[in-house]
């Protein structure tokens, strides 16, 4: 029994189709959704979102945070900044990670530190995902 899945960001719709399994990373851990999952609303952490499509193949997306709503008849992901894995620019991600790390090494306030750490997590998740896609790393 496939579940209709929709992944949307504010800017555009990223994925629409049927899936057998969805793997997401929530703020308190990894989260897998199979058909007949109980209604759920989860806050997503920056990381990858895997949708195993019905009939084979899977779509891997990068989400920079967001929400996942699981209803008996459908799943909707509201992604903050979503990118398809093959769209991720490896160089830019690496650059972001370095600059954030450098800033973290210096003196920063608590609030800024939290923000920077989030940025770092995002950059690292992006990199990880891009490397997986390229089959290297």
């Amino acid at each position, binding site marked *: 029994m496939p579940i209709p899945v929709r992944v949307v960001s*504010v*800017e*555009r719709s990223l994925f629409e189709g049927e899936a057998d399994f969805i793997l997401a990373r929530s703020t308190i851990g990894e989260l897998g959704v199979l058909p007949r999952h109980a209604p759920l*609303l989860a806050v997503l952490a920056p990381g990858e979102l895997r949708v195993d499509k019905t009939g084979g193949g899977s779509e891997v997306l990068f989400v920079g945070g967001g929400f996942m709503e699981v*209803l*008996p008849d459908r799943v909707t992901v509201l992604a903050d900044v979503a990118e398809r894995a093959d769209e991720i620019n490896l160089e830019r991600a690496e650059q972001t990670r370095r600059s954030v790390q450098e800033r973290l090494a210096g003196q920063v306030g608590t609030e800024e530190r939290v923000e920077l750490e989030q940025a770092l997590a995002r950059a690292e998740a992006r990199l990880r995902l891009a490397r997986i896609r390229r089959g290297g790393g």
Partner: protein
Amino acid sequence: MPSLRDIRNRIRSVQNTKKITQAYQVVSATKLRRAQQMVQATRPYAEKMLEVLQTTAELATEYRHPFLERREGKRGVMVLVTTDRGLCGALNVNTIRAANRVMNEQYPQARYVTLGRKGRDLMLRFRREVIADASNLPDRPGIADVLPAVTVALEEYSKGNTDAVLLGYAKWVSTLRQEPVVRTLVPVELPKREEGKAPAADYIYEPEPDEVLDALLPRYVETQVYQAVLENKASEHSARMIAMQNATDAAADFIEALTLNMNKVRQASITTELMEIVSGAEALRQSSQ
């Protein structure tokens, strides 16, 4: 009396202007279509977001997020969306006037976050306090382009430095009509659920509803600002299209008037020349007799 050549040059110059305004009109029409598509593209996200937010807010009734708390006070931050470029009629003037009216009446202690060069420049000239700005936005702005400025406004509210955050922009009604809209962003006023529509589901929350609400509310506000920016783009292109059409029409009228004038001058000079020839011939005839 201008000479024939002067008028001819003038006509040529107006014709060139007309070509430019005509081209700009076509460009605006294309950009308008694209801007409308972008507004459309945000709908699914925004609608789902609202639905989830309504459900969650109903569940987390004991929890009062600061964004839902009303504050008495006269301090306000206005997020003012305007265009970066001119040549779009009274669009920006109308938005700014509407925004200032609300601020003067309800929040005399006003500060501004400007999205768009026109609004920023005008606010600075009026010596208003501009606390953040995002100008020269690309034709297809991403949410990342507007987020920093919005975050500044929201932080002011979280820190208790302001009693409300407002939003002002030009709503797109039709190609011919754009309306200035000013509304309150924070405190957040959730629209009532449509009649007969039951809460979507009894969710399991991960983490707790309170925390989900914490994450949802700022994003809801950000989405609204982003949508306003896109809609303002659509309004901008509509207004510019109409302005350019008017300019093209005016140029056509002007060319017609000039052509008429040119013909009159030409006719007058031909008449004068004829008179000279005739009177010269007459004089010759008389002297030969």
